[in-house]
């Protein structure tokens, strides 16, 4: 089951990655990143079963960090929305080359 859990984790992770690549909406992109974090958490939990409690602790911290990131990230999205009136990342290309 461990190997399957890891596989599942990997699949979830790459799906999240795909989302980051192909979505334009900043919020969805962020959501996909959360998906990746979740995948990692799954791996941690699965591995911690036979390794020790550290893995679960790590997941605990990751969740907290995810929460913190969510707060900051959404704040940033709100902030930029005020400038552009959109969250389409394609529109944010003042900085390039």
């Amino acid at each position, binding site marked *: 089951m461990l190997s399957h859990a890891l596989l599942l984790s990997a*699949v979830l992770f790459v799906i999240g990655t795909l989302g980051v690549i192909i979505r334009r909406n900043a919020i969805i992109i962020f959501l996909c990143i959360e998906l990746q974090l979740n995948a990692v958490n799954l791996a941690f939990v699965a591995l911690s079963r036979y390794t020790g409690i550290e893995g679960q602790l790590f997941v605990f911290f990751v969740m907290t960090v995810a929460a913190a990131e969510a707060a900051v990230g959404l704040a940033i999205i709100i902030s930029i929305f005020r400038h552009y009136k959109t969250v389409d990342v394609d529109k944010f290309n003042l900085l390039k080359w």
Partner: protein
Amino acid sequence: MTEIFFILFAVVALGGAVGVVISRTPIASLLFMVATLASVAGIYVLFEAHFLAAIQVLVYAGAIMVLFLFVIMLLNLGHDYRADLRFGLWSLLGFVVVGLTFGVLAQGFLDVNDTGFREDGAAVAAALDAAVQEQGVAGVIAEPLFTDYVVAFELMGLLLLVAIVAAVVLAKPRSRSGES
């Protein structure tokens, strides 16, 4: 039995993940995400991480996703929907790269045995179970958290403080004087 549950949760998690990526509206994505989170929480339970499963549902699916929902609502993104999913060559490329990445990343995962190559794996699992019996599902996490990992814990507190400050600073509306 566990296998069946695992497959079930896995299928739902995967479906939810795909839904997150491809659904047309942010709200739908969000809901798919909740489904995934819940399924993953179920898998946590299968791995005897009950406390985390609870937190997953409460904090993740409950609080964080709601925060997302609030923001989507706040920015009124549900209505003036525009296709933000890339198609065509770009997604194909993305798909190929991501698929290959998966292949490379997970190519050895099937070889992982049930104890993760750990000779003392079974013992560790048994010890964990014993600790759960003794300290409760929260206790096994709490005990190291406030002893060995107290530094990390304090650090996390600081991190949350920074996140608050950052969120406040960034989300605060622009002062009138600054607008031109």
